[in-house]
């Protein structure tokens, strides 16, 4: 479960998140919906531990992970997978290496690692692109690599920051379906950021509408 307790965050003196409190239950699919600049991505970065709040507390699975200006649990210790808006695939690594990176960091034995990478690559149907670099893939294929990388460590929580915003309608619909399939298979908690009402209703069981850093 994710819990934000009166969390605030400001950039250059401007409050992006303003005393925000919210709960996300385990296994739930929540969409953070709102216009650009309303603080959606900041909420994800706070949950992931990439930012520390200016005030308030963040609790994940009943453990306090961040308080004002302090990160108590580093991002790698929170059991979170994330798909970034620009996907953030490492351009110098192959598809397999992008997925394997986290497994190696967790010191998974080499044989198990290879198996897991293969499993994830097959899951997202990219078997033919195992040794391709991100620059050689289409937009949809890159999305799948990002998904596979986020899921490789079997995270309890997956955060998605407008991952489908740059895709055409057809691909967008197809990938929405794939995300739902993956969710029903792995039962992770999904927090999905979008500014598209359509996407929010298709993917989430609950929609949280943000405006000026608060729940509208």
């Amino acid at each position: 479960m994710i819990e934000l307790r009166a969390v605030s965050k400001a950039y250059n003196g401007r409050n992006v998140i303003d005393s925000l409190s919210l709960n996300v239950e385990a296994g739930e699919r929540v969409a953070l919906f709102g216009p650009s600049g309303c603080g959606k991505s900041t909420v994800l970065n706070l949950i992931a531990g990439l930012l520390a709040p200016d005030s308030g507390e963040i609790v994940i699975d009943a453990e306090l992970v961040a308080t004002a200006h302090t990160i108590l649990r580093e991002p790698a210790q929170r059991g979170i997978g994330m798909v970034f808006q620009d996907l953030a695939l490492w351009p110098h690594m192959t598809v397999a290496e992008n997925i394997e990176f986290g497994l190696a960091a967790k010191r998974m034995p080499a044989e198990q690692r290879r198996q897991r990478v293969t499993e994830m690559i097959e899951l997202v149907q990219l078997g033919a692109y195992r040794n391709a670099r991100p620059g050689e893939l289409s937009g949809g294929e890159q999305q799948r690599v990002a998904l596979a990388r986020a899921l490789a460590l079997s995270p309890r929580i997956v955060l998605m920051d407008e991952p489908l915003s740059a895709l055409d309608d057809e691909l967008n619909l197809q990938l929405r379906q794939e995300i739902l399939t993956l969710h029903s298979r792995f039962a992770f908690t999904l927090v999905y950021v979008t500014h598209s009402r359509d996407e929010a209703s298709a993917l989430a069981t609950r929609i949280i509408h943000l405006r000026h850093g608060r729940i509208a």
Partner: protein
Amino acid sequence: MQRRLTLFAAAALLGVIGLAPVLGMVARSFLFEGAFSLRAYQALLSSGAQPLRWMGQSLLLSSYVTILATTAGVALGILLGKTDVPWRGALITAFSAPLLIPPYVLAVAWSAVVGPTGWITHAIGADAARLLTSWLFGLYGCAGVLFTAFMPVVMLLTIVYVGAVNPRLEDAGRLVSRWPGVLRRVTLPLIAPAIVLGAVVVFLLTLGEVGAPTYLRYHVYPVEIMTQFAAFYDFGAATAAAMPLLMITLAIVAVEYGLLERRVSELRTLAFGTQSRSRIRLGRWRRPLFVLAFAWMLVTVALPIANLLAQSASLAAYAEAFARTGGSILRSLGYALVGASLLTPIGFACGYFIQRRTLPLWRGMDALALLLFTLPGSVIGIGLISLWNTPATEVVYRTSAIVILGYLAQYIVLPTRMTAAMVERIPPSLEHAAQLCGASWFTIVVRIVAPLAARGLIAAWAVSYVFCMRDLGVSIVVYPPGSDTLPVRIMTLMANGAPDLVAALCIILIAVTLLPLGAVALWLGRVERRSRA
């Protein structure tokens, strides 16, 4: 049309300033009394094993300096560019200070510490002192001095490029690994092209260095060229001797350019200007690492310069320095001011041309500018003489114009690359909008591009000024009789001048380099305060 013509003129100018002397030198090396001849090369090959040994020593020195500078420069670059170590800005400035100073001044400074008359030498007893002095005057001392001089190149490149890495790529790594793993697997591989570029520049700058090795009595190959030219005045032998250095530089630059340029450009496009970089919080290591970096800075930068100051602390030394070199000081100042003021607009045109890919020649121009920077100054100097030493062009050869041309050729890459980086940040849509309003290209440059790039243009001028001011390699070969520069005069006096006089001259050189930069900084500060008010 206006735009294409202007940029074509800039390309042609770069060709005349930089390419023609090099090609002219290559052609002249195959001529004897107006006919094709291999005489110069035969003479070079029959001169025994000495040139080969000196080339070996040059390559060994360059390798040592490159390994040291790359290792230390990357470590410092990560520490100062990526972590929350305190006083980052001050440390970066202090570590970069040696870039403002010609390497042989650092050699003089170090000899004031551990040389025969240095204070450490006096303090540690005769045997240890002899050992220390033998280290300084030889390969190790030379490598140490040039390491201090050129390490900032790698450090600054590392700082710039770790700042350019898209923080999302590191954040994605941080979700599964701690910072050391992210640095090793994500950040460093991403900035590897920039690190290799830094290593290549350090290698080539060391390979072409004459001043510090001469002072520290370590024989290197560029001295062979100087000897053939200045001592024997055998121009054919000097051009032939310059060819191996030209070939090595050309080969290394071609490899760097072919393999890495595209990847460096790709890295630039990864950067998301509006995203703040993620900093490594050092926690309990913050203070110890600061103390370590500060101590390193004190020993390698502050100590030698402070000693130089102490050694020169006599009014008589400064009075003598001004009396003997007043003309050289003024000439250096004048040459550097003119050189920087010409380099800035030409570099701006070349940088714009390269960044906006206006003519298909842009890649060749970029490579030529980089090649000219990494060529030893003596090679460029000899090329200039071979091109301009004709009855029809005596007005260039016999006047200060040839020194200025040398500066333009050797340092054009600096304002060019700086301008290209600035232009990259100006969205083309801003120019397109002005174009749609009917503005001419000149108007667009003057009203849109130049104001947006103003700070960068001033920085390009300042960097050009520093490099012109500290130049020794080109000036020592091409200066017209009676018109030497301060670095050349110091180099001449180093052999037989009193140590306090040489130290005073080095301090004067540092001051003359820094004073105009200080004036520009003050002026900028005032302009900014006024615009805020």
